[in-house]
């Protein structure tokens, strides 16, 4: 067990070199030794030392060859990956930051990204006395969290599909009141998993494009095109309500694209860093689109979306909160309280089952939302660093 896969989703550790400053070895000793360099050339994989003390280690991997290379830190068996950096172009450097327990490891490089890796060498981590706690169940728990999140996404998209069908039916039947009532609650399912839904190339623009995002001559489809038709009060002078044929087209496409989305989310997998960064992504959706009132330009139902984005971020956070409690209880407490404060602000704008329209918010209320989103954003930023390392 001593050389278990600690960097969790190993590949995710690659992008975390910025974190070296935050994870300085608590003992303060040997910090110079904790930073190693690796030279990956055409035929050698030279590590600056064959030994290092346990705790946080950084490997700065420089590719001095002329092919794309990778660096691997393997368990003693030479098979299990403990840490890796991939896609290092010729001449470039990239850092691998890992937390290592005492034990024997193997280092190797893979110029050209094929084969078993060249110049395999033993690498020993000595006991520095630093407490490197490892939960043997961590892998399993992360897997559960990832599976749970995938199930959540599937459930939300399934509900989105059902809701979209009902919305489209009402819109086509000319029952605009019902369509307007269904608009925001149905979109909430989209907004809860927005960062996932957005990851499917063409579907996002087809379903969720705003009018300002169009290029000249481009057809406008999706939720916001229908939104403008249902709430024409703010439309430009001369805006004509859509013809039955236009309505038919838009509604049919909306349902068809949502059906496609539903098919695509059926076999999704998530990594831990995708989960933690997904929470940040949802928060950024709030910061750029909802706090500014740009998302629901015609219906002004931005707070519904706001709540749904936060719902989705909370689910992502809740999935990893148990793990975080063990790694950094203070951070968990911080996140708990910032989420709660944001929810308080939202709750204050509830009107029965609905929310205040964006246009009815005061500038001070909007500013308070923006500030709290930033307040939550900073501890959320640390979540990835804390969990993935």
């Amino acid at each position: 067990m001593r050389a278990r896969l600690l960097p969790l989703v190993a590949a995710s550790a690659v992008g975390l070199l910025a974190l070296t400053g935050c994870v300085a070895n608590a003992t303060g000793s040997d910090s110079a030794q904790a930073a190693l360099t690796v030279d990956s050339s055409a035929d050698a994989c030279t590590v600056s030392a064959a030994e290092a003390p346990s705790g946080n280690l950084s490997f700065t991997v420089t590719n001095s060859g002329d092919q794309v290379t990778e660096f691997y830190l393997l368990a003693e068996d030479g098979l299990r990956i403990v840490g890796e950096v991939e896609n290092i172009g010729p001449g470039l450097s990239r850092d691998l930051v890992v937390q290592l327990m005492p034990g024997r490891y193997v280092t190797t490089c893979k110029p050209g990204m094929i084969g078993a890796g060249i110049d395999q060498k033993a690498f020993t981590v000595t006991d520095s006395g630093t407490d490197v706690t490892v939960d043997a169940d961590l892998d399993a728990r992360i897997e559960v969290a990832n599976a749970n999140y995938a199930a959540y996404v599937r459930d939300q998209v399934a509900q989105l599909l059902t809701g979209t069908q009902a919305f489209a039916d009402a819109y086509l039947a000319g029952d605009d009141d019902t369509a307007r009532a269904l608009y925001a609650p149905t979109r909430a399912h989209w907004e809860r998993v927005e960062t996932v839904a957005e990851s499917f190339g063409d579907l996002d623009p087809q379903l969720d494009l705003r009018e300002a995002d169009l290029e000249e001559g481009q057809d406008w489809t999706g939720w916001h095109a229908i939104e403008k038709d249902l709430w024409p009060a703010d439309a430009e002078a001369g805006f004509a309500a859509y013809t039955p044929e236009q309505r038919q087209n838009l509604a049919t496409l909306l349902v068809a694209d949502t059906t496609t989305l539903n098919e695509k989310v059926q076999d999704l997998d998530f990594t831990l860093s995708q989960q933690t960064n997904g929470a940040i992504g949802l928060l950024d959706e709030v910061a750029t689109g909802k706090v500014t009132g740009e998302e629901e330009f015609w219906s002004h139902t931005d707070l519904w979306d706001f709540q749904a984005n936060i719902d989705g971020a909370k689910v992502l956070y809740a999935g990893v909160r148990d793990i975080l409690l063990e790694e950094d209880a203070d951070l968990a407490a911080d996140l708990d309280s910032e989420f709660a404060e944001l929810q308080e602000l939202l709750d204050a704008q509830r009107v029965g089952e609905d929310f205040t329209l964006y246009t009815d918010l005061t500038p001070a209320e909007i500013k308070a939302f923006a500030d709290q989103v930033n307040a939550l954003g900073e501890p959320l930023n640390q979540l990835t660093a804390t969990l993935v390392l």
Partner: protein
Amino acid sequence: MTDATSSDSPTADGPDTGAGPQAPRGLSRRGLFGLAGVGVAGLGLGVAGDRAALAVAASSAQSNASTVYPFYQEHQAGIVTPAQDRLHFAAFDVADGTTRADLVELLQDWSVAAAAMTAGRDVGDYGSVSGPYDAPPEDTGEALGLPPAGLTITFGFGPTLFQTAAGVDRFGLAARRPAELVDVPHFPGDMLEETRSGGDLCIQACADDPQVAVHAIRNLSRIAFGRAAIRWSQLGFGRTSSTSTSQATPRNLFGFKDGTANIKAEEPAAVTEHLWVGASDGPAWLAGGSYLVARRIRMTIETWDRTSLREQETVIGRNKGEGAPLSGGTEFTEPDFELAGRADQPLIDTAAHVRLAHPSQNDGIRMLRRGYNFVDGNDDLGRLDAGLFFISFQRTPASFTAVQLNLARHDALNEYIRHVGSALFAVPPGAAKGSYVGAPLFA
């Protein structure tokens, strides 16, 4: 003085070359040799001491402050001129009731004043402090004692100067309007504000001292009162591109080096092909000129700062530390867009900014970019109103449109930026001494 490179070199002997006799203001003749291209153009006077580039320019720490770029030359200065550190840009609308003769007179007055200020002199016959005691000074005076600081002043003509949106030909210029001088199209994601877009005339003032640039716009707008008024203006505090191989590539507010592949003054063939309007391109009055596109690009830096380094580098397509393309090498290595990594995915993402903006992905189109970082306070939500004031010069606006359309459609960076201002100007060629900028248009 036939090619862009030589015509835009600073004069080694100070203001005498282009601007005639004068009383230099604060212009030290010591250390004026070899000012061009020693890598010091980026040094502001007051901060020279703590810039790494100082080491490069150890021969004369003062040299860039004393740099003078002549106003009267074949092409207007401020285009291939090594990008100065500071910008003050202003768009003007011509006032109602201004006649063609008034407009010509304004351009004449502006040219005289610009020649004086770029040479490091005050505006007017008496300047800041030598006039009649009971009259307001001709020059506003805040540049007294400051060196010329490499000031360049570049003038441009907007589409509405030739014909208003309502189709009115105020100055008898409609027939001389280049066919290409029309507003650039709406691009996906554009959120343009009327009050930050368009304009009949523009002035780009660049200098290595912010007060020198502001002094230029202030005095030129004062001269224009009654004939033209500022429509919008923009300060830029740090250049984001290099227009000479002697300059290091600076960073934008995302913390990345961008514009590494800019057209450089030292590439005369590229300058001729991509930058200057040719004699057969359109109206003769514009030959030797160029087109200036300005875009105020707001960056949502708070959101950007929450993204992982992996995402940031993927979006840009370069590494953050050195600015090398993710396909390898150093900053100036050509990106290899084919080189694949794990799972046969290209090392430079298909939506990476460096890929989509690269000439090889845009039918060989190149532009000379001359943008500046800005931070204009904050918005109502407490977010910094920060971004890039993009300026590009090109032989035809179609170059900008093609590249921008490609970026607006696909660039991963779009998630973190929004274009809020836009303007296009025809930049006439430089004026001969004794004449004025734009004279051929009115001939």
